[in-house]
């Protein structure tokens, strides 16, 4: 009965769906053009590589957030989780004391294991406690954050072994074939993420779960396992981001990763992933993370707005992205 009505809107809809996927890329191009007009230094390879490098942490975390959000969940704890993981990783390295590759590898392993465990904790509480993910991760956000403050005794956790710092430094600062390693890391994470989300049955189950949990359950999708796994993937992504982040400063402080959850969620939403779940766009997320950093960069390079207002502009962007999403939704 309603088919007749929908029949007409189908043509329009196809267009809007494409719009949803394309809009982050259009915004990216528009920003690059705007940046080039504002400051000639903007469109240099070194500046652009710098911008993308800086966006790597958020991009990697946001790839994980794409899974959680596409599956109908939310993780607010990623910033705190990153700080805790960075702190524990540095403490592990310091305690091991060595300056060799083996020590570094052990420390990295500890970081990934811890972040995966943090994600597992979030996932288990959400699925088995049947509590809203917003509340659960709000709670763990506080827990993880305060644990790192406790470990640091309110101060800074710094890598003590100078050799190890020198050994580890290139992971953030070096390039392979002219491409900074963080950029390579985030492209690899995004590619693997896209492969999992778009090409595996697990990825299909995530989208089904986010679209309609009941339908997924009635279709025999193991919803508890799928949901918990999305949080574990989020945890592992945080761990990978930390691996790239630690060599940058070689320390972790109580303010490490502050508001990263906001930036990650913003990147995901700008990228066209539906906040209520059911649509996940990995490459859109990547572009979203780059857009956030581009905006900050353009603000620094231009004299229109104080760079201290970067957070305000990024906050405004998420609201605008939601408005765009909704108008696309209405267009159906």
């Amino acid at each position, binding site marked *: *009965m*309603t*088919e*007749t*009505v*929908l*029949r*007409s*809107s*189908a*043509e*329009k*809809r*196809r267009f809007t769906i494409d719009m949803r996927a394309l809009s982050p890329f259009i915004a990216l191009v528009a920003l690059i053009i705007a940046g080039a007009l504002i400051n000639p230094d903007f469109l240099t390879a070194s500046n652009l590589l710098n911008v993308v490098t800086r966006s790597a942490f958020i991009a990697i975390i946001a790839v994980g957030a794409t899974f959680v959000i596409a599956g109908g969940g939310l993780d607010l704890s990623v910033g705190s989780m990153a700080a805790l993981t960075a702190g524990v990783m540095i403490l592990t390295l310091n305690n091991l004391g060595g300056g060799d590759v083996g020590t570094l590898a052990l420390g990295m392993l500890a970081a990934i294991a811890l972040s995966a465990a943090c994600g597992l904790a979030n996932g288990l509480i959400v699925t088995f406690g049947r509590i809203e993910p917003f509340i659960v991760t709000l709670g763990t956000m506080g827990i993880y954050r305060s644990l790192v403050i406790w470990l640091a005794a309110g101060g800074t956790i710094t890598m003590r072994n100078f050799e190890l710092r020198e050994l580890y430094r290139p992971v953030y600062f070096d390039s392979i074939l002219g491409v900074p390693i963080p950029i390579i890391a985030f492209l690899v994470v995004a590619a693997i993420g896209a492969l999992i989300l778009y*090409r*595996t*049955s*697990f990825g*299909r*189950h995530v*989208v*089904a779960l986010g*679209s*309609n949990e*009941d*339908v*997924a*359950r*009635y*279709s*025999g*999708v*193991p919803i508890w396992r799928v949901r918990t796994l999305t949080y574990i993937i989020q945890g592992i992504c945080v761990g990978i981001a930390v691996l790239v982040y630690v060599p940058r400063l070689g320390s972790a402080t109580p303010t490490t990763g502050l508001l990263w959850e906001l930036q990650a969620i913003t990147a995901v939403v700008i990228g066209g992933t539906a906040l209520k779940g*059911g*649509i996940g766009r990995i490459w859109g997320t990547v572009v979203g993370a780059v857009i956030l950093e581009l905006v900050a960069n353009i603000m620094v390079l231009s004299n229109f707005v104080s760079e201290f207002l970067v957070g305000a502009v990024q906050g405004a962007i998420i609201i605008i992205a939601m408005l765009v999403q909704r108008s696309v939704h209405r267009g159906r």
Partner: protein
Amino acid sequence: MESVLRAENISKSFGPIEVLSGISLDLKPGEVHAVIGENGAGKSTLMRILSGHIAPTKGGLHLNGQPITFSGPVDAESHGIVLVHQEILLAPDLTVAQNLFLGREIRRFGFVDDRAMRERTRAILRELGTGIDPDREVSRLSIADRQLVQIARALLVPHKVVAFDEPTAVLTPVEAESLFDIIRKLRSQGVAVLYISHRLNEVKAVADRVTVLRDGRHIATRDIEGLEPLEMARLMVGRDMSKLYPDKPATASDQPLLGVRDMVVPGYVENASFTLHRGEILGFGGLIGAGRTELFEALVGLRPGHGAITLDGQKVHFRDAREAMAAGIVYLSEDRKGKGLLLQQNLRVNLTLAALEKFSHGSFIDGAGEETALDRAIKDFDIRTRRRDLLAGQLSGGNQQKLLLAKMMLAEPRIVIIDEPTRGVDIGTKEQIYRFIASLAAEGRAVVVISSEMQELIGLCHRVVVMRNGRVAGEVAQADLSEDSIVYLATGVHEERAAEIAAGHA
């Protein structure tokens, strides 16, 4: 008599597609005018034009002989034209009275006057013949009572024309009968009633005149006098529909396939027992709320429950739908949109969701295999879709049901449980679904059909188990299948008494 609302040569196009062409219809005060047609015939579009939700592309409306255009549904309501929606549009956490007056609260010194609203609500509900407590939250009402509240809300505004869009889709026969009493009461008050339905027996029972639409065109307007349901079906579909039900396959055996003993679903079902045989179509009848859906949801692990289940003589227990599917049992929910299909995803994603491992190499999905499966499903199940990349939510009810069937059949089940197989499905598609169900049994599978349409149970099933208040009230063998025998078990009283009781209760 002069018509109160008249549509003249109404056409409606969405983009290049014309969904209504040149429809004329007139509604007289004190008549029930039924509009019937298959899904996609344009009934709902016509209804939405008459009630001001959308404007016609061509043609116009006349109210009491004067040309009129409505700016929207509110404008139409202010002219006394109200629409009772098919879906329940009530706020579940608000009380009946709060819902009735939502957006038009009675105020006193700027504050809501709960007492006045409660009294008005009580009066209106009493007029509708029901004693629903105005202070009860809507979420605690049965579906039938919710619908009554919805009708009450529509009738709150002064009305000259009341349009019902498939009002009985969620009602049992007894509840439907009390709705017809309300409609007859409206008619006797001189109100023009527009009645849209799939159910031709109901149309025969309640309507004075019938307009038939097919493919957006006006086929006929006839007096109900001398117009039998079979003829209505022929007009709707455009071909002879005398054989709606297929022959019952002679494959029903005595070999038990599934045995259920003392199944308990807390709050819904007490000690239900039954046996399902190979090659059999077993019907489950009863009133809405009798616990049929809950019994089978618990059986396949979708809700908590316990009891002794034997499959092929082996004791089994399913913790979730996945385990039940692995054992060869699928359950197709009555709630197609909420639990059956992902409305926001395309047909391919929906089709393979329950059997994704069949389309995977390792953990990767075989997209080409999925496409082939979709081609086959579209052909085998006659899923009518203009484009393959449509979303499931854009299909009509009948095609959604076919897609759901195709999806669940990919799991290659031995036992298929179908809850309300033809709810919201037009008659042409019904026939296809019935034939499909019969073919499942003919292939040696066992089928359970849960239905509130007694004709369907009688026409389709080898045996019917009837539930009442969470218990199995009895079983009707093929030779004894009749509406009366089912109603007797479902209500505990014979049919004539049941209607009286319904009128009294309602």
